[in-house]
């Protein structure tokens, strides 16, 4: 009951937020809410491998940031009117959402395939370190990428074109992000309950056992890693449209840590956990940062408490409450 109430209440509030915000004259809240939803999407993508697959990736910002760069770079060439690649064939830029966003997912999916193929040969602590190493490599790649601003980053001339939706309008952008998050959540729900999802959860529980049963676990983990990377790329595409600016800091290891915190705080291996985690984390940041610049002093202990006393995070606690009734 608690769970259902929270889900319906949360969804209603999410739908009603823009008119409510306008009514009380706090329009800027819509922008913050969109940002929260984008981080929730990034968290949902990480949760697939971290929460359901037991793979602790400390480099998820690599996909988030790369997705953002894909949109920014394609948009950059679209407004300059020149080509992105001239050999062996010509590829121009694009500021169309229907081209740039799937492209961000595709690029990140391929990137995850390459990185995952190597990283997934390790496990445990080594996996954490090698994913971090790859993310840092990409970080420095974008720092050195002078044609696209290098360290200074790259501004978008305008958000992606998504006719009939005007993404420069905060409310329209917010609703599009909300819709995408809901679609991805629904797809995740199907995936987790499917044969594939069952295998993934089995690998989290006991990979050796799964191999003895006859599963080529590596392939399933890699597939999950690729899906996760592609969805993180979509989140990145959205954040680029939200900030209308990208920089290497989008791939920073601290960003990877933030996405991890979102998932752990909200509840690893629960469908809605990352959404709850993103709301809690970013709201706390918003509120506490206004109060003191040392807001991490409060958030840190809070995270320790959650990890100690609520193994499955905020949403895990909600599910436990609902199960008891």
């Amino acid at each position, binding site marked *: 009951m608690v769970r259902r109430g929270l889900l319906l209440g949360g969804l209603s509030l999410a739908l009603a937020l823009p008119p409510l915000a306008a009514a009380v004259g706090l329009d800027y809240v819509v922008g913050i809410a969109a940002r929260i939803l984008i981080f929730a999407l990034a968290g949902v993508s990480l949760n697939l491998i971290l929460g359901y697959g037991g793979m602790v990736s400390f480099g998820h910002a690599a996909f988030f940031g790369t997705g953002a760069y894909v949109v920014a770079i394609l948009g950059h060439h679209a407004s300059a009117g020149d080509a992105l690649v001239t050999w062996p064939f010509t590829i121009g830029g694009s500021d169309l959402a229907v081209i740039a966003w799937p492209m961000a997912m595709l690029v990140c999916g391929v990137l995850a395939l390459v990185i995952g193929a190597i990283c997934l040969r390790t496990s445990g602590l080594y996996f954490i370190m090698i994913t971090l190493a790859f993310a840092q490599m990409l970080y420095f790649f974008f720092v050195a990428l002078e044609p696209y601003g290098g360290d200074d980053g790259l501004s978008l001339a305008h958000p992606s074109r998504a006719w009939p939706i005007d993404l420069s309008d905060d409310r329209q952008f917010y609703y599009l992000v909300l819709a995408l998050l809901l679609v991805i959540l629904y797809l995740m729900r199907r995936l987790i309950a499917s044969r594939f999802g069952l295998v993934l959860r089995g690998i989290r529980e006991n990979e050796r056992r799964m191999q003895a*049963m006859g*599963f080529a676990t590596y392939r399933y983990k890699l597939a999950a890693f690729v899906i996760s990377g592609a969805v993180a790329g979509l989140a990145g595409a959205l954040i680029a449209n939200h900030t209308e600016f990208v920089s290497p800091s989008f791939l920073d290891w601290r960003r990877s840590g933030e996405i991890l915190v979102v998932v752990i705080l909200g509840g690893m291996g629960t469908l809605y956990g990352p959404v709850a985690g993103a709301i809690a984390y970013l709201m706390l940041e918003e509120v506490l940062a206004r109060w003191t610049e040392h807001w991490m002093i409060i958030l840190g202990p809070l995270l320790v408490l959650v990890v100690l006393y609520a193994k499955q995070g905020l949403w895990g606690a909600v599910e436990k409450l609902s199960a008891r009734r």
Partner: protein
Amino acid sequence: MSAPLLRIAGLRKAFGAVVASDGIDLDLAEGEVHALIGPNGAGKTTLIGQLAGEIRPDSGRIVFRGRDITALPAHTRAARGLARSFQITSLLPGMSALDNVALAVQAHAGHSFRFWRPASDEAAIREPAREALARVGLAHRMDMSAAALAHGEQRQLEIAIALASQPRLLLLDEPTAGMGAEDGARMVALLESLRGAVTMLLVEHDMDTVFALAERISVLVNGKIIASGAPAAIRGDPNVRRAYLGEEDA
């Protein structure tokens, strides 16, 4: 005699100076229950590990159903009909007993790159899983998480997982380990009921279990098989008595 189901030829594995398998030769006929006994540290679990594909031998060959499987990974061997239970209970603790077994069925029902249909709706997977659970006497524990089962029940679940894949050869690493008399007897009865249907290689310390089940026994000492034959012959073998069975009264 027809070709053996499993043929082990000249298997060698050393960990540094310790030779765990020192030129092991062993044939298993289709349908037989074969026990592997030997003192602690004789290399029994290492041999099971090599058969299951978790440990790569230094040299020698393993032929299963007429094919050389020496270089194949564990999951491919499992796909060819080789199932195992672990000495230390190895389950998917956070998942229900039914999910544990359903995954074993699923592993042998084509690839699992299926992303849409809920696995719990698939009767073709769930029904054989329920049957395997019923066969080991766990039908009433179906929805309980594996971690919440009693120790004896967890061992039974191990067998159900192994059975669910409809194996040709079952590697059982101390199936009665840590069990009380009652659970032990139930496990022996369960394995007895599988006789003829599945070929079994049984590693066991409990001699009552060994002599109750085995048609043939091989004795492994220091990585070498020092005797192999019918239970009566093994019981009477002076080498075995000296090396292992009743050292104090030999």
